[in-house]
């Protein structure tokens, strides 16, 4: 804990794996910050990383995080900024070692102290834990994990802020984790800096909301903002959000001077409701947050004050994300032009389905969408104009049989010469067959996980 600090500035660097690579560089160089937090992990991301690790045991983390770190580590060292990220994915050790090598290459190896957090990966302990009475029942379907046990590829418990706090306590200036919650990345430094008690539920809730506002990057500072979107200026230079936190749990959301985008009540509110469930009961490993207690106040240009947040005690359970092999899918598309674009696309779909049937192929699901007509709003969009310029036919299949999905991918291109006219947009070639790694949300006793969490310097 740093005595006497009355404001801690935490800057968002990435909102997901694949986010704007310039953002963290600009956050580090564009003004004063104390921490840079980079969230890389979504449910879908974990399964992609898992696929990569299956192919190459050295992979399984966000590799572009390493490239990025090599670029910013000299600034981080010079300015005394600390970096916290869950870029480690399903291989945090590999990630930490790669960042260590990047620090050496950048010539700041002696100034960078990397902490590695492990213990979230419970794949090797899954059967032992199941025997000990943890059913890992699917939170959505109640099915026991035994249904899919042979197909399981990874299992990670969601850790909270504690290992981040511990890592900072050890003097780390770079903290690399696996499945630490998005919000824990921000709450950790606040608990470390302000010395908050981990059962001070209102402050824990406040730091969690700060994390929620930062975890999707520019989505709280003008990116993807619906309200008044035409008036959001200079998104090409969008400033990612920065939280200026106070010891009492209140904080201001802002961004660096001179950057584009906007921080206002609307931009913060849209992020607050993003991925929301029951707003009175937002459950994290660190505590439960009541979103109905949040107070927002505009405090000058690009400044929104957030206060009043109340929380409740954490539960004795942690969420677990299990990734398992589900089957295969492929999606193919063709574009039909005016005149009668929609009718032609519908005719092509009928022909395709008859051919699939004649081939004796069956799928768990065949989904047809007409992009330009119904892909995003379904029947709510109403009938398209008969003069519509073009319609994209987009057909997807999903099933357990790889050969059937593979055969489907060979039925798209033939429609060009054997189906309705005025068709284009097939230059990309045959659609790829994708392996589906599905997500199995479950719960596990906190006491089964926390004793195994380790923080070590790399």
């Amino acid at each position, binding site marked *: 804990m740093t005595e006497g600090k009355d404001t801690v500035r935490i800057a968002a660097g990435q909102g997901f794996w694949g986010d704007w690579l310039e953002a963290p560089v600009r956050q580090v160089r564009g003004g004063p910050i104390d921490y840079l937090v980079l969230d890389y992990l979504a449910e879908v991301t974990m399964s992609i990383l898992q696929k990569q690790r299956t192919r190459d045991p050295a992979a399984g983390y966000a590799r572009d995080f390493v490239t990025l770190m090599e670029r910013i580590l000299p600034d981080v060292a010079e300015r005394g900024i600390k970096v916290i990220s869950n870029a480690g994915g399903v291989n945090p050790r590999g990630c930490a070692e790669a960042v260590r090598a990047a620090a050496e290459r950048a010539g700041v190896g002696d100034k960078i102290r990397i902490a590695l957090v492990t213990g979230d990966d419970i794949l090797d302990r899954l059967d032992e834990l199941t025997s000990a009475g943890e059913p890992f029942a699917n939170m959505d379907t109640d099915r026991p994990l035994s249904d899919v046990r042979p197909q399981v590829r990874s299992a990670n418990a969601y850790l909270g802020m504690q290992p981040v706090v511990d890592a900072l306590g050890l003097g780390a200036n770079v903290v690399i984790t696996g499945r630490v919650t998005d919000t824990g990345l921000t709450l950790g430094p606040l608990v470390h800096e302000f010395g908050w008690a981990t059962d001070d539920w209102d402050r824990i809730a406040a730091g969690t909301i700060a994390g929620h506002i930062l975890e999707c990057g520019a989505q709280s500072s003008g990116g993807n903002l619906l309200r008044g979107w035409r008036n959001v200026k200079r998104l090409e230079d969008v400033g990612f959000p920065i939280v200026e936190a106070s010891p009492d749990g209140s904080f201001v959301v802002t961004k660096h001077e001179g950057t584009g985008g906007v921080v206002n009540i609307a931009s913060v*509110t849209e992020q607050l409701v*993003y991925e929301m469930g029951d707003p009175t009961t937002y459950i994290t490993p660190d505590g439960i947050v009541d979103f*109905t207690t949040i107070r927002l106040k505009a405090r000058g240009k690009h400044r929104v004050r957030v206060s009043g947040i109340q929380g409740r005690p954490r539960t004795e359970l942690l969420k677990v994300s299990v990734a398992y092999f589900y089957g295969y899918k492929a999606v193919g598309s063709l574009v039909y032009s005016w005149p009668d674009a929609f009718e032609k696309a519908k005719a092509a779909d009928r022909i395709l389905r008859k051919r699939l049937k004649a081939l004796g192929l069956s799928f768990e*699901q065949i989904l047809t969408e007409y992009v330009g007509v119904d892909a995003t709003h379904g029947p709510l969009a109403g009938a398209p104009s008969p003069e519509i310029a073009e319609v994209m036919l987009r057909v*997807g299949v999903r099933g357990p049989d790889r050969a059937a999905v593979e055969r489907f991918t060979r039925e798209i291109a033939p429609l060009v010469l054997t189906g309705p006219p005025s068709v284009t947009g097939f230059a990309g070639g045959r659609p790829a067959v994708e392996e589906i790694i599905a997500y199995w949300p479950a719960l596990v006793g906190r006491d089964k996980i926390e004793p195994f969490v380790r923080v070590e310097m790399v």
Partner: protein
Amino acid sequence: MATTIQLRHLAHARSGDKGDTANVGLIALAPEFYPVLVEQVTRKRVARHFKGMVSGVERFELPNLLALNFLLHGALDGGGTLSLKTDAQGKVYSTALLRMEIEVPRRIAKRALEMAS
């Protein structure tokens, strides 16, 4: 006197996903619109709006943010990596809700159209 108006003139929205459930956070564009949303944009009406697209709807109120949160269950063809949909993660269900038409007092409609111009 009441008049019919599309929700997009009264609210903005953002959506996200959790498994096969999409959420839509519907946020009033002005404080005086919020009670109208609470009264008119009921769980039942939203379920009817999304008929055939979702299997169930829940609604929660956040008066502090002038917002309603809707959970649209079974909206994403399995969701996550399973879904074959373009909008597999429910990112634009929010705008689909804004198509809904509701009955509002004339003064509310007038105020909404003033704000738009």
